[in-house]
């Protein structure tokens, strides 16, 4: 079990940077008023961020990933989360195995 000093310093730098990003939203909303259309815009953040995270997987990785994303999205309208996720993972594994 070793703990290198430069490594520890790097981990702490990452931790501090990440903590800053996490609490800064609390400061932000204290100094910016959130009424009307701004409030609406804030509500659009969750789907916008999630979409940005998955978009390269969904549209720019491969046919297997694109199809599996479509399967997952379709399943999500009717089925519970765990089932939809399992269906997505299973379909990407099968599609990759058959070489799509």
């Amino acid at each position, binding site marked *: 079990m070793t703990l290198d000093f430069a490594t520890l310093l790097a981990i702490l730098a990452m931790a501090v940077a990440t903590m800053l990003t*996490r609490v800064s939203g609390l400061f932000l909303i204290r100094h910016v008023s959130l009424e009307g*259309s701004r409030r609406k815009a*804030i509500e659009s*953040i969750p789907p*916008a961020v999630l979409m940005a995270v998955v978009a*390269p997987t969904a549209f720019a990785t491969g046919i297997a*990933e694109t199809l599996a994303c479509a399967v997952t999205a379709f*399943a999500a309208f009717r089925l519970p989360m765990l089932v939809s996720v399992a269906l997505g993972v299973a379909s990407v594994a099968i599609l990759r195995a058959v070489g799509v």
Partner: protein
Amino acid sequence: MRAIAPLIAAVIPIGLVFGALAATKALSPLETGLMSALVFAGGSQFVAMDIWTHPASWTGVGFAALLVNIRHVLMSASLATKMEAFGPRSRYLAMLFLADEIWAMAEFRAGVARLTPAWFAGLVAPFYLAWVLSALAGATLGAFLGDPVVLGLDFAFPAVFIVLVIGFWKGPETGAVLLASGAAAVVTQHFVPGVWYIAAGALAGLLTALVSGSRRAEVTP
């Protein structure tokens, strides 16, 4: 507990992969566990492994973590408006555990029920433990693990996020936001190296919501 089960199932393989990857960069299990416990942000940890040097550069990985996690600013600003049940101190404490998956589940919960500190803690504790312990296991077991890509396990998180996106659907306005965000993210990812695509997509979606919101205000004064 039902809310967290799919996330635990999805995070364990990712944690194992992270631990195994860290072992190939000569990080000890102690260092790997410490990083997962203190940083607790998978994306930035994978990026750090990508650019890891010997000796480690704290400026390099620190700045990379800032860039990768800048999306947390938007996420915490959004979630902060839904934390009426939290005291001033517990707000900050809760925010320190704001990983993507935690945030997404909390936003979703806030849409259907009041967000309470107890519910939040029940969400964070098992997820945090699973992330740290799976990284430790991955660092110790290393190369004995199979290839998660063959098993499709790398797809678990995109799948969780897709399910959550569908849950946020509120009509055509959401469609416009998703279209703008997805297009901006794909284009940015194609032309700009690194993780700027997440910030670009999020901003494009936010701007679309602002524009369509102000247009509605003009039409119905």
